[in-house]
């Protein structure tokens, strides 16, 4: 197994209500890079991501995190180390500050809110603002800040720009790249947008109908697809 691997999946399958959603996935997530999970809508990308912080468990196969079987790690510890930002920014009632400090208060961690706002690019004046007054773009930034405040080793992002306008999308992409550089984070980013994958990613895995089609450097995958299904996806035939 790769020494620098954060996650290593072997023959991972997942079924729900009798339907197979993921089929025999082999995948290695390298440390300190942005790994893209790419694929058409409904292909199983989110289901794959949810396995990494145990929001769901696979039906068969094995997932290892830092060399240890995922199921052997305390769920609370795992979720503190492996932060996740959901597609929709579900914020808790209260202020921006309440949200940023939510996890830290839960786990008794000391954090300087100013440091987090600077890191994520949130205006400090916003800290006292009620979250109900935020735009979707601002809310997504707060949900990223909330995850980053716990100082995770890995950040999982499930199509965090899907509800955003082009300007906010670029801001979130720059934020993610900046966090990976500044904190040495390992990032797993789910998207169905090819250009976004190209802008953000280092490595990529392409999932179609729950199966792994390709896994390699994203630029190579997008410029010279090795599989007919990859070509069809890139040509917009599978969306």
């Amino acid at each position, binding site marked *: 197994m790769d020494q620098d691997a954060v996650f290593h999946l072997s023959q991972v399958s997942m079924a729900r209500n009798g339907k197979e959603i993921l089929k025999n996935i082999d995948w290695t997530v390298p440390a300190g890079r942005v790994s893209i999970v790419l694929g058409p809508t409904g292909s199983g990308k989110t289901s794959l991501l949810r396995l990494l912080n145990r*929001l769901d*468990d696979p039906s068969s196969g094995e997932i290892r995190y830092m060399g240890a079987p995922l*199921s052997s790690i305390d769920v609370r510890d795992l*979720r503190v180390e492996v932060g996740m930002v959901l597609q929709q920014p579900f914020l*808790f009632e209260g202020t921006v500050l309440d949200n940023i400090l939510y996890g830290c208060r*839960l786990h008794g961690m000391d954090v300087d809110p100013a440091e987090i706002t600077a890191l994520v690019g949130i205006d400090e004046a916003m800290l006292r603002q009620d979250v109900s007054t935020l735009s979707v773009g601002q809310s997504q930034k707060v949900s990223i800040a909330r995850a980053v405040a716990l100082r995770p080793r890995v950040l999982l992002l499930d199509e965090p720009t899907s509800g955003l306008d082009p300007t906010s999308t670029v801001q979130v992409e720059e934020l993610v790249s900046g966090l990976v550089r500044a904190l040495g984070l390992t990032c797993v980013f789910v998207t169905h947008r090819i250009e976004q994958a190209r802008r953000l990613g280092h490595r990529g895995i392409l999932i179609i109908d729950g199966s792994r089609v390709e896994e390699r450097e994203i630029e190579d995958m997008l410029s010279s697809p090795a599989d007919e299904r990859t070509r069809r996806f890139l040509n917009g035939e599978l969306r």
Partner: protein
Amino acid sequence: MSQLIASTVLIVIAVVLVEIKRLGVGRDILKGTVRSFIQLMAVGFALKFIFGLEKVQYQVLLLLVMVVVAAYTARGRAKSMPGAFKVSFVSILSGGAATLGVMLALGIIDASPSYLIPLGGMIIGNSMNALSLSFERVSSEVKQRRGEVEAALCLGASPQKAIEPLVRRSVKASFIPMLNLMKIVGIVQMPGAMTGMLLAGADPVDAVRIQLVVIYMLVASTTITMLVGATFTYRGFFNRAWQLRA
């Protein structure tokens, strides 16, 4: 008994009216009349028998049977919530036992069947209704706000912590019928215990006094039931890996 026989005239009037209007429910009213007569007479004789049993063990046994039936009924409102029966049973039992215990300890009531059974029945019935409402609401909140719960889980929150705001909202909403009753009691609505005593010829002030005791008793028992219920409600929605059940 002559009063009871005479009062059946009211049923006859109702049946005649629905038959004239051809609403097609005349037979149902008659069936319902016979059924309610048999049920209530049976309950009357059963209570007469139970009131004759002086031993506290029998009363406790009967109250336990009532708690089981109430817990089963409350569970029916939350079929998607695993373990709802256990939570209901423990919650209703705690609310009932604590409230009746305090009333006995303070000498508000005697440990006689004529107090324990009807008051116990009121406590259990009200707790069941409040708990059912709360279960129904929390189940639908979890369904609607799955993302909010999972956002908390993603930050390492325990299931209890993740579901806490939803449970709090549901419990708060379940208090509304009781709080409304306290606002309008005696003005818009004459409550059951007071009405019964007035019909039986009791002094109105005595009737009010008992009714107030009943209301305070129900406030306490419902509160305890709801809070105990809230403490355990979260369990049914999660598995051991802190994952929301599908």
